[in-house]
């Protein structure tokens, strides 16, 4: 094989190893799903092909060895390797086909929408409770007794959190409650997991339906306490709020 192919192959392998083994071991990280690794490797391959075909000379240098290998012009030991590839390729296709069509007891891939759209009746609501220190502290108290067993110190690491998949939300994460309006949280707390639409997979969450335990006013206070405790601000359309 031509030397010009070595660098792209090394680059692709390096990126795969980086995504598979290094990223999961970074602080606060976790293994990447294969769908994401595949996506990034496709981008890498696209980049390699784009760069290799910028000029006629680089295109020939890149694809020439592949064509010569596949057509048997390379000769020598590569001819035997060519027969091996030609024999293995149909087997690979067969294996892939079998793998994608054979029945399996593995559950299907999960595609859960974490923040589905709320019902229309909740979209226009605004928090009717004044944002006083007393109300915020009262809400934090309710949070401590009702929410913290799962959501912990606003970081999703309550003592019961380990028992749930998916785990309780981490409110300190800037991509959770900071992206949402207070009315959204009101809906989620009031109706709980069972109130989620299908794309939110209501069967995948143990969030209780708090309207059975708390008044609307208390729920609004919990929301204020939650934002304050997590150091986040709700999404608003008015800077003065």
């Amino acid at each position: 094989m031509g030397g010009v192919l070595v660098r792209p192959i090394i680059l692709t392998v390096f990126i795969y190893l980086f995504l598979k083994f290094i990223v999961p071991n970074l602080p606060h990280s976790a293994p990447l799903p294969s769908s994401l690794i595949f996506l990034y490797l496709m981008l890498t391959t696209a980049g390699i092909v784009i760069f290799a075909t910028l000029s006629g000379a680089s295109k020939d240098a890149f694809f020439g060895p592949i064509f010569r290998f596949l057509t048997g012009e390379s000769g020598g030991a590569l001819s035997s390797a060519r027969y091996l590839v030609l024999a293995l390729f149909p087997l690979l296709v067969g294996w892939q086909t079998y793998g994608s069509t054979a029945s399996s007891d593995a559950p299907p891939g999960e595609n859960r929408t974490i923040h589905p759209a709320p019902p229309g009746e909740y979209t226009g609501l605004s928090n009717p409770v004044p944002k006083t220190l007393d109300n915020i502290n009262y809400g934090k108290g309710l949070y401590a007794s009702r929410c913290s067993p799962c959501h912990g110190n606003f970081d999703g690491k309550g003592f019961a959190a380990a028992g749930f998949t998916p785990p309780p939300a981490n409110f300190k994460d800037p991509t959770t409650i900071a992206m949402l309006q207070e009315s959204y949280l009101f809906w989620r707390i009031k109706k709980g997991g069972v109130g989620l639409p299908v794309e939110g997979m209501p069967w995948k969450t143990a969030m209780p339906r708090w309207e059975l335990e708390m008044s609307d006013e208390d729920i609004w206070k919990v929301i204020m306490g939650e934002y304050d405790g997590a150091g986040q601000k709700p999404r608003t359309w008015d800077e003065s709020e």
Partner: protein
Amino acid sequence: MMNQGQIVTNHGRQIAGRVALLAGCAALLAWVGLPDVALAQEAAPQAPTAYRDIPYIGSRNLVWIIAQLHLLLAGFVLGVPIFAWLCEIVGWKSGDKRYDKLAKEFTKLLTSSYATTALFGGILLFLLIGFYPKLMAYLTDIFFPSFLVYCGLFLVETATLYLYWYGWDAMAEGSGKKFHIFLGFLLNVFAFFIMIVPNSWATFQSSPVVISEGSDFARAWAATWNPTWWPVNIHRLIANVVLGGYICGAYAGIRYLSAKSQEERYHYDWMGYVGNFIGVFGLLPLPFAGYWLMREIYQYNQQMGITLMGGFLSWLFILQAMLIGVLFLGSNYYFWLGITHRIPGSETQYRKPIMAMLIILLLCLAVWMTPHSLVASLAEAQQMGGTHHPLLGVFGVMSAKMTVSNLMVLVTFMSFIMYWRAGKQDTAGWAKVAKAVMGAVLALAGIAVIVLGVWGYFVPAIIRINYFSTSQVGIVIFVMLTITPLTALLLKSAKTTTEMVWGKMPPRAGYALVLNAVMVILLMTLMGYARSSSRVHWHVYGVMRDSSQYAFSPALGYAAALMALNTFLFCMLVAFIFWVATMGDKAKAAAAGAKGHAEPGGIPAMAGGSPALDETARDASVGHRPI
């Protein structure tokens, strides 16, 4: 004499025969595809018909296809005059006749494409009246005054188009040319209003403003000036420029691939460059217009905003990222191929900067394409702690997307600047200072965009939306407004070291142009579905509920299949329009060929590459012409 029983039996037979005949006719009518006239849901015998359906394909699918084709054709018909008018002005100002010829070539397409667009508009109107009579009665009640305005606009647009097209040669010189350019301006002004009037009907369905009092005109005006009207107007206007440019590029690409003479290759290579340039010119501000539109939608209604950006339609935006990514890569690739093939000897000189730009583009694209909720197996989701990755999940939100889209716009702009400067040597004494300033502006802008993007995670959403995102856009615009005139000034005194050679691009450049056009069309079909589906089960959001059997959002896979079908049908329609419009040229070229000379544009536009192109691209033995 027949007895009573026989009479009844015969009468019964007659009735049965007639019923059978009627049933047969009904079956025949259904078989030939006439709409099913049965009421959909309403059981009351006197209730007005709310919906009608059509067998097999279904009313919604048929309206979807026709509406999408009409919109794409309308985008083409409104984009091409902008493209042609800009080319005509460049040709008039620069004295370069090629631009005038290009403008005329594309205006010729308008006559047939205008008629086709109107035809699909008429079909769509009949289908809407037939399938959704209740909704159409409601919309007519609100918008009737603007229906009249729309008709008036069509009349003046048609008259102007005829004058513009048929008067081209008669007004080719002097004050006649100035008047012709003024006609082109009027054509585009009327076309703009033709676009924004129906935009008001469509945006009203998403963000209705209904007032119960006042005159018909006051009600229509209030409904027209709804919260998403202007964001959609601006977004569509820019998108139409992009569509016009890339379709011109695709046409040039196909003609280039089938070109048989060097003169043709020269012409269509140049045309492809112009098409790609105008496409990119429109593409650069498009993400900003899209962002403004989404902001207005979210602000108008949280449910609609989340449905689009975080709910079940959010996967469309990952598809959108892929398509836009391919478009950015394709446009830059075409610029880079231009540098390496049109400017001999520049390959080694620009290889490293191209590699750097490619890496930045791919990294940005990786971030843009990373979803907030990942597709994962149960085991993978357990390892991650849900479908949200604890580290890369931060790429899934708007702050990251906005940052990388700005960076991609910057890189694409720099690709163009690099192409513009290639093959020229600065001679001005202040060139070094100017280049240092440009480098510093670019580096600082890149850093500022990234810093604002990261900082955006630590401030309230409203601060990020109102200040950080707009500042990022402002920074990118500032870079363009600084570097473009500086480069133009530098190039005024620059010495040309290597002349640009046209007609030497490899076949893959032609395919890249076609790919770009297909990506734009797919993007428009995708966003059409997104805009329409964001209303969920409402005809008019929050006002008139969809109570038909189709009051559900089709699955994304199903929608993607229809998007692909619509893209294919539109490409076929455009190919047909090009074929019809160039039929006369082919006959002329055949006649000219018989006399011993051929004109560019006279060869049938058949897809497929010429294997000789790669060879000729390398041999570079013919036709050095300056840009």
